[in-house]
């Protein structure tokens, strides 16, 4: 089984995820960014604008603006105009609660609407009692914001983060979003044992049986709604992944070409991230791996030559058969080792497999890791 081929590394990232602020008007139970929010200070407007100029010089194509809650920044529109002036497109992740008619009017100024790829609102329940358990006191405001964006024909998307509080509500959430609100599609993920949730695992993280339930429910809903529910991680993505493994095994295959190594993350070949104090990190899921500071360190140098970036890219040359946790696993030939962020959170080493994405863990057959029940 050969190592996965390494993608060519472009001269600079194609996109950058930027946490513009550590301020947020909510206190969600599973926020992965909560520790950074309390420990770091926001950068002033001028420093972000200067950074956007650097991104423009490097011909970065798009940024994803997140936080915290981006709409708590009073200078948000100035910053968005800075993105636009430097020849980039942008997307926004928001809790939706601060979206108003004034917000929609602001989007119509200049090229703000033209350059907007998407604006993603988080909805975690079909009604306040469910949504508010993980995202306190926000359901009505988030839904109002979502409806406003839809009425304005904004490129709005929704993310549902599956957790212990909404696992029995998934069909109602799908009905609300797709039938009642009229959303074209939504995506799903799963509350991960990281950030603030690390301290609340038992309260919100799916149990193994709930995870299985979520996988089954979301698979059925995705079929019923014909592709309008998707996922790149979490229960629905894992259900598809694990089903594919079973199908390959049933067909007598021993591997999937390009797999069998720690090749689960392509992000390190295309993108970087920045925390709200200007710290450069490989990804917001790898927020403890500090690579430098904007305005101090040359972003292109960090991208091309930082030892951590090089190590993350070389990760896909590590065969799973060389890992103690995977050596005797019957699924190594079908596996990519999953997200390095999860691996780092759960094992302290990004050069390990992510147990949350592991088929053997999911089946309760792993001798090294058991999901919290």
């Amino acid at each position, binding site marked *: 089984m050969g190592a996965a081929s390494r993608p060519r590394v472009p001269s600079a990232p194609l996109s950058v995820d930027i946490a513009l602020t550590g301020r947020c008007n909510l206190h969600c139970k599973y926020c992965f960014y909560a520790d950074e929010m309390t420990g770091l200070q926001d950068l002033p407007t001028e420093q972000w604008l200067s950074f956007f100029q650097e991104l423009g010089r490097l*011909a970065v*194509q798009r940024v994803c603006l997140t936080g915290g809650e981006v709409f708590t920044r009073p200078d948000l529109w100035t910053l968005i105009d800075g993105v636009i002036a430097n*020849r980039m497109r942008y997307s926004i992740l928001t809790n939706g609660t601060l979206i108003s008619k004034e917000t929609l009017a602001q989007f119509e100024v200049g090229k703000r609407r033209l350059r907007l790829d998407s604006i993603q609102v988080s909805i975690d329940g079909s009604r306040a009692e469910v949504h508010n358990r993980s995202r306190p006191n926000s359901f009505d405001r988030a839904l109002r914001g979502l409806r406003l964006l839809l009425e304005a024909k904004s490129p709005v998307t929704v993310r549902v983060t599956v957790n212990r509080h909404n696992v029995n509500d998934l069909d109602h959430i799908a009905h609300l979003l797709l039938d009642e609100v009229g959303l074209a599609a939504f995506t799903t993920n799963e509350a991960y044992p990281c950030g603030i949730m690390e301290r609340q695992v038992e309260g919100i993280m799916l149990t193994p049986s709930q995870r299985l339930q979520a996988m089954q429910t979301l698979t059925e809903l995705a079929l019923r709604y014909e592709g309008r529910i998707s996922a790149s991680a979490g229960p629905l993505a894992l259900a598809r992944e694990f089903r594919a493994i079973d199908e390959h095994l049933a067909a007598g295959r021993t591997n999937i070409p390009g797999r069998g190594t720690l090749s689960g993350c392509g992000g390190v070949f295309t993108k970087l991230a920045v925390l709200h104090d200007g710290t450069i990190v490989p990804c917001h899921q790898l927020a403890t791996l500090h690579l430098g500071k904007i305005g101090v360190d040359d972003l292109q140098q960090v991208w091309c030559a930082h030892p951590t970036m090089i190590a993350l890219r070389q990760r896909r040359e590590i065969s799973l058969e060389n890992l103690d946790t995977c050596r005797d696993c019957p699924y190594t030939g079908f596996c990519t080792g999953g997200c390095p962020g999860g691996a780092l959170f759960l094992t302290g080493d990004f050069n390990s497999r992510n147990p949350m994405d592991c088929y053997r863990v999911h089946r309760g057959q792993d001798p090294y890791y058991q999901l919290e029940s």
Partner: protein
Amino acid sequence: MVPPNATRYITNPDVSCREEGPDGALLFNPDSDQVLLINPTGLVIWRALEGPRTSEGIVAFLMERCEGVPEEAVQQDVADFIATMIDKGFVGTWQGA
């Protein structure tokens, strides 16, 4: 169609150009969200068009840098490049003084 000779062309200032070593460059139009990969010759033309030039001016610019290439072939390459770029909104006609 070969554009009229007197017309001066210029790159769309909103388009970014990312040089990628021997592969040429990646052009990105953020208004249309279109990406174009251009080869090293295309990159030379692109750089020439960062100031307003006629197609003849670009041909002359290239002929100074290319040895042993028939001028007719260069003219055709330049005409094709400009036509494609105008069609996709990556290059426009110069309206300045």
